[in-house]
């Protein structure tokens, strides 16, 4: 818990920097746009329609969409205008959050202005106000409470949705939630959720007080609320400036995907690089898998761990299944260097592949050691897999090669899968070969005797820019070649997933035992 609280200032500040700027831009864009469209009836429906469509895009998808979108825009702006857009991190999150904040503010601005009594509009014209004076002196003040209601809705939405910006590389309170859910650290999930909720309530109340003060003309309330809001903005800006100023030499950024092993390895690599090269590092965790690869290629991150089989299938788009770890590794190595300038600095020595697992005792009783043994008995057994497994090419290949006909197949959350196998709720599960729970729950990995599943060697990838600028980085990482075997990785995962230790702590322990 103490360790979690220690992360709070950084996460909360980042969250604040995202939410505050998104809301400010959202208000500054939406209120004038809302006013403008009340003056042009034809446009109003179209604009509100577009805003509604944006709103129906699931928030996580909207955030994820910004990454390729910015990459495309960036491909034009970089050569044409000399502007390099960062497609992961703060910018995509900010754009998505801003878009999300616009609908409620637009809607209430239109509703507020159109809701002004026509009698008062005529009175305003009758006393000699111009259109602009009427807007500023009559329509806007009367619409204010309604508009503020929209701003408050947007505030709560944006603060909540900002927790989802972690997978696009923007630090937020979502880092607690994403990593906490993966590593079964519910203290982290609670801290993240509670902090986000508290921040939402705080901002909402400040906006509310501000409106109340304006409406009731209570100078003291206005001053207090405005000071609170200004203070938050100043703090966010100061933190940004400090971060920029402190930076000095740019840091080596290490990325991670959203599961335990990746958290541990990213911390391990960071520690290793600092120790071996003296370069400063930072860790960007819980990124989406394709986001990571694109970011490595564009130089927004420098290092991360991927798996040879993943690159083989998703980047090289290969569906054939070659024989031998070495061959796949070599083909991947050649391909990445040739096509992307990305270098495999080291193969860590273990694989994290899809594998089928059974309770050890059960398998022993039935005499099952390999997938061929399993195939003969599959008609009387049930299989469980994570949500993705049964639609993956690996499963199709397994089924076709071994001729599995299971009695029943069930999709379940990967965090419950191992438990289900241990409790004999299903007989066979799709496991990840380095999961710590395989040993902990006394499960047995079945041998893929016909080598259907491609090898998934853990490989340390270094982006083209770092290869050029920091040859010493590639060298240092090269010394990690073969440093971890499957059992060692299982133990590390087990320490986090089951024993509840923090990934950074586990990584530190490992680092101490790794010698040059």
């Amino acid at each position: 818990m103490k360790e979690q609280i220690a992360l709070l200032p950084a996460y909360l500040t980042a969250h604040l920097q995202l939410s505050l700027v998104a809301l400010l831009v959202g208000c500054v864009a939406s209120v004038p746009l809302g006013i403008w469209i009340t003056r042009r009836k034809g446009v109003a429906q179209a604009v509100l329609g577009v805003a509604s469509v944006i709103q129906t895009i699931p928030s996580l998808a909207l955030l994820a969409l910004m990454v390729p979108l910015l990459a495309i825009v960036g491909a034009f702006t970089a050569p044409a205008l000399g502007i390099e857009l960062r497609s992961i991190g703060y910018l995509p999150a900010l754009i998505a959050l801003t878009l999300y904040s616009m609908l409620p503010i637009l809607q209430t601005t239109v509703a507020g202005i159109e809701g002004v009594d026509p009698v008062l509009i005529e009175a305003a014209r009758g006393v000699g106000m111009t259109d602009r004076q009427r807007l500023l002196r009559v329509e806007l003040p009367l619409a204010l409470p309604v508009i503020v209601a929209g701003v408050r809705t947007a505030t709560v939405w944006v603060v909540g949705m900002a927790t989802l910006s972690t997978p696009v590389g923007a630090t937020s309170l979502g880092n607690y939630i994403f990593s906490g859910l993966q590593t079964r650290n519910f203290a982290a999930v609670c801290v993240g959720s509670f902090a986000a909720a508290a921040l939402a309530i705080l901002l909402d109340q400040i906006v509310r007080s501000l409106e109340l003060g304006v409406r009731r003309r209570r100078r003291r309330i206005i001053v207090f609320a405005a000071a609170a809001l200004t203070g938050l903005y100043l703090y966010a800006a100061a933190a940004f400036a400090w971060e920029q100023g402190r930076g000095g030499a740019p840091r080596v950024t290490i990325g991670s995907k959203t599961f335990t092993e990746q958290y541990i390895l990213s911390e391990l690599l960071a520690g290793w690089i600092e120790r071996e090269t003296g370069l400063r590092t930072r860790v960007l965790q819980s990124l989406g898998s394709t986001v990571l690869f694109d970011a490595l290629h564009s130089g927004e991150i420098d290092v991360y761990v991927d798996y040879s089989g993943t690159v083989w299938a998703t980047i090289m788009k290969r569906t054939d299944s070659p024989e031998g770890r070495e061959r796949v590794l070599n083909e991947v190595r050649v391909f990445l260097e040739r096509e992307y300038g990305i270098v495999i600095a080291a193969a860590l020595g273990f694989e994290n592949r899809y594998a089928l697992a059974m309770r050890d005792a059960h398998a022993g009783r039935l005499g099952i050691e390999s997938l061929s043994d399993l195939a003969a008995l599959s008609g009387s057994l049930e299989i469980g897999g994570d949500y993705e497994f049964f639609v993956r090419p690996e499963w199709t290949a397994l089924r076709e090669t071994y001729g599995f006909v299971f009695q029943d197949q069930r999709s379940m959350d990967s965090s419950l899968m191992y438990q289900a196998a241990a409790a004999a709720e299903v007989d066979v599960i799709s496991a990840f070969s380095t999961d710590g729970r395989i040993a902990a729950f006394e499960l047995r990995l079945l041998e893929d005797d016909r080598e259907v599943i491609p090898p998934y060697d853990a490989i340390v990838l270094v982006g083209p820019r770092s290869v050029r600028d920091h040859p010493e980085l590639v060298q240092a990482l090269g010394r990690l070649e073969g440093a971890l075997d499957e059992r060692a990785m299982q133990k590390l995962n087990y320490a986090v997933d089951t024993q509840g230790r923090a990934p950074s702590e586990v990584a530190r322990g490992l680092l101490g035992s790794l010698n040059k």
Partner: protein
Amino acid sequence: MIQLEHLAKRYGATLAVDDLSLEVKEAELLVLLGASGCGKTTTLKMINRLVEPSAGRVRIGGRDAAEIPPATLRRRIGYCFQQIGLFPHMTVAENIAVTPQLLGWEEVRVGQRVEELLALVELEPALFRERYPHELSGGQQQRVGIARALAAEPEVLLMDEPFGSLDPPTRDRLQQRFQSIRAQLRITTIFVTHDMVEALLLGDRIAVLEGGRLLQVGSPRELLRAPADSTVASLMETPRRQAERVDALLCDEEAGRDDGGSA
């Protein structure tokens, strides 16, 4: 002071105002009288360009109103209407001060003017200045409405059934109060009403409208004595007929009481 020359307003196929010509003299109060839909409000709103005429011309002090920017024109014309339309987010003083502020008066002068006007419409300044419209009765609100219309010392006052929504005693009091204000200010006024009694009591002259056309214009006495046609005649007779019926009712009652007394 005000000339309406062949004024017309067309809404689609219907003519709301049809070739209307009228003149209002300096310091005169002209009543536009007629049933609802006769075009009296439309005529009034064409004077301060809340409605733009389809044809014809409005001259104010000799100048063509169409040549004056609407906002500028309206700041010189007081406007007061049945729904009152006080701005709910402003205090009484702020409502009255609106037009002078739009004209860029100095703050001190605006403050003095607000005091004067509150006194004129008989609302104790100290008591009412800082109140909001929703804290006032209907009659008080309309007095603020009149004060707002008069605030910028306009040359012309347009009133669209200003007392129409008030209860009879309040309306009676306000009519009397308004007459005395007018006697002090001698401001040129056009007053729209469908209430015959109000027209007779307040108007220097009355213009009777029907279906967008002017039937007759003249002093109450002229209209009573020599109605131009049967419509005007029956309109003019209404208050007298009503008064006679009220009289008759009183007589009956007195006769009844006399009967009772002698029994």
